[in-house]
């Protein structure tokens, strides 16, 4: 019996130690010798285990370990739509031993919205690499009377506000997408916020409680395959590889581009050597064959960008979202 308790205690302590060990970073002159022998790198995920950001991070982790030659620990700090994790990432020491998986729009929108009182600015984070772009799509019931995008949007113009569309919460990516659609096309889709996330949204859609489903390709693709949803349009410049028959919004004459992008970032101010090493390791991990094929299985098309391009991508997103921000803010 004593042994059980000892075992439990040891187990518990090991767990506690595992949680602590990564935060023990204390050196200041991290540079050429990065990463120091035996010192592990913490990969902070600002979302719950099991989500797309977490899954991607856990997929690259083993390759990243090989590339960097040290342990990489994935640590989840979920909450407040990413704000809690982002805040602690921005406040971490810029020595390369703490990096984070980030998603946008959340990373650009959170600091933009004053009501959230975020304790960090976008500039406090430095982009390292983009892994995935997951465009938004719009879908209707498989037996819907809407045959194409034009049908739906014209009908929405005729009956403003009466057609409901799902989001995963106020100011989430889907909400921005709906605002962009409404602004660019003159339609008036009315958002229904499912703050619990994409699975609640698609459940309500499947139960026909909401007419229109707005979501990332990776979330909608299976419904389309099962014949439960009809994707009308992709909010991207080019057609999606996984949905070759679905037209883009621009093909239909609407200028709407919206996507969730996921990548990696560090607290701003990394020593140049360290940043270079991290970027190279991340590129290798993201483009690793087995990682790419596992991502493909999840409906996620790998779309690598290096730090400079990814930074520009953020700036572009920031500008896009600033335009529609008043439309999605709580009145």
């Amino acid at each position, binding site marked *: 019996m004593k042994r059980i*308790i000892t075992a439990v205690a040891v187990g*518990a302590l090991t767990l506690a130690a595992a*949680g602590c060990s990564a935060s023990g970073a204390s050196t200041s002159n991290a540079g050429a010798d990065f990463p120091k022998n035996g010192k592990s790198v913490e990969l902070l995920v600002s979302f719950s*285990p099991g*989500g797309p950001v977490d899954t991607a991070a856990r997929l690259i982790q083993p390759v990243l370990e090989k590339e960097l030659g040290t342990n990489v620990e994935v*640590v989840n700090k979920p909450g407040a739509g990413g704000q*809690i994790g982002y805040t602690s990432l921005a406040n971490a020491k810029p020595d390369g031993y703490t990096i984070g998986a980030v998603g946008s729009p959340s990373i650009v929108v959170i600091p933009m919205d004053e009501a959230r009182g975020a304790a960090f600015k976008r500039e406090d984070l430095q982009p390292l690499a983009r892994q995935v772009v997951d465009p938004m799509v719009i879908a209707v019931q498989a037996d819907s009377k809407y045959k194409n995008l034009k049908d739906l949007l014209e009908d929405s113009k005729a009956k403003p506000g009466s057609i409901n569309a799902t989001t995963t919460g106020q100011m989430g990516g889907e909400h921005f997408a709906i605002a962009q659609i409404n602004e660019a096309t003159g339609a008036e889709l*009315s958002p229904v*916020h499912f703050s619990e996330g994409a*699975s609640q949204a698609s459940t309500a859609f499947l139960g026909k409680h909401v007419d229109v489903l707005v979501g990332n390709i990776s979330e909608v693709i299976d419904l389309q395959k099962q014949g439960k949803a009809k994707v009308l349009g992709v909010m991207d410049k080019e057609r999606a590889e996984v949905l070759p028959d679905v037209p883009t919004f621009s093909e239909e004459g609407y200028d709407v581009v919206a996507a969730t992008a996921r990548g990696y970032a560090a607290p701003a101010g990394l020593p140049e050597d360290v940043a270079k090493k991290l970027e190279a390791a991340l590129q290798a991990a993201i483009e690793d064959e087995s990682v790419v094929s596992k991502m493909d299985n999840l409906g996620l098309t790998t779309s690598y960008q290096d730090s400079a391009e990814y930074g520009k991508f953020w700036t572009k997103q920031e500008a896009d979202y600033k335009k529609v921000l008043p439309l999605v803010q709580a009145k």
Partner: protein
Amino acid sequence: MDVLNELMMGFAEAMTWQNLLFAFVGCLLGTVIGVLPGIGPVAGIALLIPLTLNLDPAGSIIMLCAIFYGTTYGGTITSVLLNTPGEAASAITAIDGYQMTKVGRAGVALTIAAVGSFIGGTIATVGLVLAAKPLGSLGLLIGPPEFFALVVVGISLLVALAGRSMVRALISGALGLLISMIGIDPVMGAPRFTFGMDRLLDGVSFVAVIVGIFGLSEILSYRPGKNQTVTQTPGLRALLPTRTDWKRSTPAFARGTGIGFAMGLIPGMTGSVSSLLSYGAEKKFSKYRNELGRGAIEGVAGPETANNAHANGALIPLFTLGIPASPTIAVLMGAFLQQGLTPGPTLFAEHSTLAWTIIASLFIGNVLLLVLNVPLVGLWTSILKVPYPILAGLILMFMVVGAYTINFSVFDVFVMIIFGLVGLGLRRLDIPLAPMVLTLVLGPLMERSLRESLDISHGSFSIFFDRPITMVLLLIALVIVCSPLLKLRKPAALVAEDPES
């Protein structure tokens, strides 16, 4: 008899020694994860997914499923023995389970819980085999308005949980609602009761709160001499339930299975709602309802059956529709996807053998869980032989580590400590804790579904009155709320000795 044939084929696959081993290891790991407070099923499965990535698909999914329902049993152990719920779905079991421990009946409670888990899990799996298709689409009928009405029924059970004093129950319930409102408003994004603290944006962790309220406050209220009979070590004989125990548990098993299975079908319901509703149902309908709260076996049998029936029932929407009905299932679905399998109707078409192997392994897993846990009951209860001061120290360590591991943050430890003090205050003031747990769990669900409904109806409340299912549910809630007025319940003599104090 296609189904039966395919199931038999599944059994043949699942009975290979590797797969049996995976199921066994999964059950064991799940039980351990359940025992550790803080690491609930969601985090547990997510953390263990990497371990299973290199196994073949059947083996890895079997193991993860076993972990999944192993946790629902493991959580019970600490609830009953230490009054510290290992995970949310077992929180309500602590009330009567720990009272049973105090009078030396811990073994009985744990055995009944194991059997209840087995019954609930097995019947729900039979449901999965027989009626998965029609039941799966039934869950889809529950849209936000129906969900809201269902949660209202749940909240109305507060009436049943109120003991002697309705006012005290309402205070407790209101406090629970208040706590559940902390954090970012789920719809508009406005921070509520956060006092400018980033950390509170996400609200307070449910597990940290209940560990504090139940567990820590229990230890804090310990005074030597006053309640030195805190725990009695059970003899071997006391480990086994008596015939009366079995007889009394049977209706609770039945109610628990029904409630858990039905709730499991509904996307968005969590196991803790099932166990709470089941406890409420026992409070309302059990022949021995006046004993609940003082260590009645029904208070363990019902909720524990319900949460396992829920766990297995929740697999139905996953297998038939590809919908993850709860956060845990969502993580499980992630594991499916990583193995290149897409849950949903196509799973049966494209990977028929595999799908049936997994279902067969659910039966096997439930048996393993029973076989594993009943003999271990003696071992677990022997923890109570440790002298109280040492035990209290260990429990404290356990609670702190548990609170820390929720998000790997010290903040949750403070949350737990603060709520320990709150719990102590409530105990002193004679305010029952159960209604608070009820509203704490249901409050956010109610708010969310209400606002989703109003989004759908563009702000009109008529949405709750022109849907038949919603109407019926709301009427049921009304009847429950009014039942004390109608004096349908206990005669006055019983009220006087009601145990909820």
